[in-house]
């Protein structure tokens, strides 16, 4: 069965500092990995995805994520955090021939001015 873990419920970072939101996964087969962001009282917005190829994926709003197959991780990163990045971040996984799109539990990011 597929599963996604986001080991941190909450991440706090100072504005201007680099940020990392962690995601690990467990699947049978090759994973397709996604990051979404949810702002308060809004739907989820797509940030980036890894399908194949270069392990470093660049996405919206300056975010990037690195796929690490040996560590089964797909951590989200940004070199310099903004207060406006404060939101709830979800990692998700799907596999080849898989029906379900499985989301992690979410990590709340707070960027402090």
């Amino acid at each position: 069965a597929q599963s996604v873990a986001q080991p941190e419920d909450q991440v706090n970072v100072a504005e201007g500092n680099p940020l990392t939101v962690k995601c690990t996964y467990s699947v049978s087969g090759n994973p397709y990995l996604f990051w979404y962001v949810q702002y308060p009282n809004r739907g989820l917005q797509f940030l980036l995805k890894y399908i194949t190829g270069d392990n470093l994926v660049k996405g919206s709003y300056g975010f990037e994520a690195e796929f690490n197959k040996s560590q089964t991780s797909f951590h989200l990163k940004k070199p310099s955090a903004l207060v406006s990045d404060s939101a709830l971040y979800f990692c998700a996984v799907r596999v080849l021939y898989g029906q379900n799109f499985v989301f992690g539990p979410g990590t709340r990011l707070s960027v402090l001015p």
Partner: protein
Amino acid sequence: DTAVSQTPKYLVTQMGNDKSIKCEQNLGHDTMYWYKQDSKKFLKIMFSYNNKELIINETVPNRFSPKSPDKAHLNLHINSLELGDSAVYFCASSQGKTGGRSETDTQYFGPGTRLTVL
């Protein structure tokens, strides 16, 4: 133009009532989904339709019945509402061409419907 829209945005109702939530997408996508987000923000898929055909039906009470009149619409009807149904319900869509492979498709989400059952 809103890509994926849902109505209503808020829904407050009494236990035992029947209610519907509507979803429409103007992206030309073939696949649509319903998700439930609970009070702890945990997001779980409920249903998926591809070109009006049900392809995912997770372990959801049969009080929940999706209906897809055409591939741009996926409505969720809930009978005999219970307190535990209180949540935010999100509709989503992805390209997912009929008969094709869709595992890599990005899903686009609606703004959500906050359902409160009293």
